[in-house]
């Protein structure tokens, strides 16, 4: 893993002409973008614009309809990406009958752990210390999301694919996600996150991939990573500040 964005090497994840159709009905695309180590990229789109489908295609769970995906220059396969990716999806992958710590211990046993972190410290890292022995079913939706984020944090992987990581979280939780993403990018990881536009990754220099059917899809929104972008770019809908205040 390298410490800084290194554009000489092949990008961590690259899509060329990527499109997906379900029953001959186009879901998204064609998309071209590249994700380098040290980057956080926001996928923006309205509800139903294909954000979740895109993440499932990129994680190898779904086969792309058209185009190709390259993982570090090689064509993507499920076997190649599985040791390198952590996926946070709507179904958070937690067992309601297990305690938070048991859930994380299982994830650690299955995927291994990042050096310098353990299930209890990951739990503390998402603000849930003291909840180690609470069955996950007793937690609120936001707290479950935090446990799922702790699982992502624990995994020894470079690539995070987070589907709506801000959903259900309070303002403090939104800041937590931003902090986790920033730390992950600083240690050379990369993340693709989806958002329907209400909240946005606010630190660093986020690029965004608009998925709305009516949005202009140009190479510029994705490929000119060298240009420092504005603090955020929203392609869909509401202003983030008012939404965040409404959450409070």
């Amino acid at each position, binding site marked *: 893993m390298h410490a800084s964005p290194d554009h000489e090497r092949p990008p961590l994840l690259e899509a060329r002409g990527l499109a997906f159709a379900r029953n001959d009905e186009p879901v998204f695309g064609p998309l071209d973008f590249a994700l380098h180590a040290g980057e956080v990229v926001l996928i923006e789109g309205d509800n139903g614009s294909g954000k979740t489908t895109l993440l499932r295609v990129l994680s190898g769970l779904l086969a792309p309809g058209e185009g190709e995906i390259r993982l570090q220059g090689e064509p993507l396969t*499920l076997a190649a990406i599985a040791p390198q990716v952590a996926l946070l999806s709507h179904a958070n992958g937690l067992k309601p009958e*297990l305690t938070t710590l048991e859930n994380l211990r299982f994830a*650690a046993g*299955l995927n291994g752990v990042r050096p310098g972190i353990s299930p209890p410290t990951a739990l503390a890292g998402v603000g849930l210390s003291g909840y180690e022995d609470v069955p996950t079913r007793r937690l609120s939706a936001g707290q479950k999301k935090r446990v799922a984020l702790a699982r992502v944090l624990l995994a*020894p992987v470079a690539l995070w694919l987070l589907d709506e990581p801000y959903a259900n979280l309070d303002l403090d939780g939104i800041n937590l996600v931003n902090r986790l993403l920033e730390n992950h990018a600083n240690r050379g990881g990369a993340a693709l996150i989806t958002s329907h536009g209400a909240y946005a990754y606010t630190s660093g220099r986020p690029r965004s991939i608009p998925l709305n059917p009516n949005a202009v899809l140009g190479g510029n929104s994705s490929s000119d990573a060298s240009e420092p972008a504005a603090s955020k770019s929203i392609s869909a809908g509401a202003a983030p500040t008012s939404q965040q205040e409404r959450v409070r």
Partner: protein
Amino acid sequence: MTAASTWSACAALVRRDLILVWRRRGDALNPVLFALMVIALFPLALGPEPEVLRRIAAGVVFVALLIAGLLALDTLFRSDYEDGSLEQLVLSPHPLSLLLACKIGVHWLTTALPLIIVAPLLGELLHLPAEVRWVLVGALLLATPLLSLIGAVCVALTVGMHRSGMLLALLVLPLYVPILIFGAGACNAAALALPHAAPLLWLAAALVVALVVAPLACAAALRISLS
């Protein structure tokens, strides 16, 4: 980076599934209660004559256990599919077929083994001849893992569908029929004091093949179901 070894991943999965069965232990008793109910009803329907019951005992126990296993089959991947754990298994850096073999193993251990343990008792309720008792247990020990392995492939194919129970039964039952014929056939042969090793050996051979092939087929079917 410390990647988990495949061995410790399997151990973590077995441990997790055993804890989950223990936390839902009320549900775990359902197959045993179902088999007990079915077998308790037979003497009431057919009358208590030992000669009649003795003749059908092995077959009835076999069918009751087969259907009890079928009812428990749906729980194999259902909750893992619904809460997203299955996705995490597929995206883990280990061979999916090996992880699924562990899951099927735990499922057999917690649903079929209790049934095998009570089978001699259930046979006793139907006046099962003593010389058939251990043939029945042996046939079940060979047949139930085979049922679990074949059933797991069918469950993996149908897990993405809503209300797949009937479809699952339609898919699974034709595949279960030969196992039933060989298993119950061995018991019937033993009851008539005929040689009964051949059907048991057939079951053993099928089990060996299924142990190798079924986890691979199950992994392929699950990947299809998830996409």
